[in-house]
């Protein structure tokens, strides 16, 4: 009986050790990258062997948040860096998507300004381990725990990026905070078009979806609120907009209905450039504090974009009546 107990205990310990071994093996992130033709001296690359969290990014990149890790390839000689990243991006329809990138091989930026590496996308449709070139990441010199740079992905950019180096025991818990969106070439023409007549008027919502709270009874209100949260964009079931200018700075009164809730916003500082349309969002009249921003495209009596109110995002499409 005693012998059986010993066997059970030993078996348990063996199982535990095996499981730890598996975990350790899976966290070894970068293996199998060939020795690059050009190797950055480790004195230059070593300071970049860090974990980073994205703190700011050019708004055009459509990246909400992200984190990455650079580390020396295991067993490489001479040592070379490989980076892996996870970015949470806005898709064209406002949904949040995860983009995985590998950064390899690193080379030095001219003038010793930092490092750069091709951004290799790890696509969901690609075969296991297969990556495709998708852009480039440049990391300038690390200053304290901050490092600036720029990124080109999906055929666009470059967009400025700013990262913060994470401490040894620091973690985002898999939920990197939303990065600050850096404005870029902001539209600065007043109004939403060259002539007030182009955009002044009554609009109706054209992307109204089925009301998700319709059969929810008492839970309808909380569903309406919850469905408006997050980065994906609320399911808007109805709405209207009135834009008024008449020589004065134009403002827009917007009503959106989500489930059992009806929200009213005032948009001020309407501006445009090309087909871009932006505005500031207030929820208690034009003189109340700014709670968010409208960003979209428009022209010829149509307007579509994202109305952001704090944690709530409303994807709206309007057409002039």
């Amino acid at each position, binding site marked *: 009986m005693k012998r059986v107990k010993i066997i059970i205990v030993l078996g348990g310990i063996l199982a535990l050790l095996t499981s730890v071994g598996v975990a350790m093996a899976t966290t070894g992130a970068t293996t199998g990258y060939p020795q690059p033709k050009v190797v950055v001296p480790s004195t230059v690359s070593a300071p970049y062997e860090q974990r980073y969290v994205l703190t700011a990014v050019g708004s055009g990149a459509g990246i909400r948040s992200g984190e990455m890790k650079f580390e020396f390839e295991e067993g490489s000689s001479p040592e070379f860096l490989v980076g892996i990243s996870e970015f949470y991006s806005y898709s064209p329809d406002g949904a949040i998507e995860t983009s995985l990138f590998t950064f390899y091989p690193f080379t030095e930026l001219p003038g010793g300004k930092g490092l750069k590496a091709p951004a290799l996308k790890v696509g969901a449709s690609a075969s296991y381990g297969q990556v495709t070139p998708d852009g480039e990441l440049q990391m300038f010199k690390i200053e304290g725990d901050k490092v600036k740079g720029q990124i080109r992905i999906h055929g666009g950019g470059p967009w400025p990026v700013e990262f913060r180096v994470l401490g040894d025991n620091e973690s985002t818990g898999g939920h990197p905070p939303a990065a600050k969106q850096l404005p870029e070439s902001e539209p600065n023409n007043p109004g939403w078009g060259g002539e007030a007549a182009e955009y002044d008027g009554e609009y109706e919502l054209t992307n109204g979806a089925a009301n998700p709270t319709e*059969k929810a*009874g*008492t839970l309808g209100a909380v569903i309406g609120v919850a469905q*408006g949260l997050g980065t*994906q964009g609320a399911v808007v079931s109805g709405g209207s907009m009135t834009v008024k200018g008449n020589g004065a700075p134009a403002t827009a009164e917007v009503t959106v209905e989500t489930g059992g809730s009806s929200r009213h916003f005032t948009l001020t500082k309407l501006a445009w450039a090309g087909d871009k349309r932006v505005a500031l969002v207030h929820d208690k009249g034009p003189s109340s504090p700014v709670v968010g921003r409208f960003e979209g495209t428009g022209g010829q009596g149509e307007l579509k974009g994202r109305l952001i109110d704090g944690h709530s995002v409303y994807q709206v499409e309007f057409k002039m009546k």
Partner: protein
Amino acid sequence: MKTRFIAIAALLGVVGIVALAGCGGGGSSSSGSSSTSGSSGSSSDFASAADAACTTADKQIAALGTPTQSEVLQYMETTETVIEKLHSEVQALGGEGTAEKAYTEALGKSVITLNHMTNAARNENYDAVREISDELIELKLGELAETAGLKVCAEVPVTES
């Protein structure tokens, strides 16, 4: 031999009586409860009492209005409390019909889901709050309420910003 036969017969008789008494007890109890649930009076009692509880809950939820960013957690916490109380009240009514049971059960599930949503809001994970709320939609609580003959419970509380 004869004495033994009589003893066995008597014993079987006693067992039989006990067994019948047991069945009878169960039967009477079950028939009692079925008569309770089966009576239309009880069913309408459930409906009116549940609707009264929903009226109170709806008022409390409507009074919360539409929360601003900083009010989302408080909104979730209060809603969870209101629905939890509503569930306790409806459960205590002991609806026995299939539709009544389905509504009560869904209400119980919604309390758990709301708790998850509140926790997500506590962590400021608003994407998760939204995602989890899909589970509330799937419950179709209003539809279940309607099937159970609950008019007020089937309605969505109207709030305005």
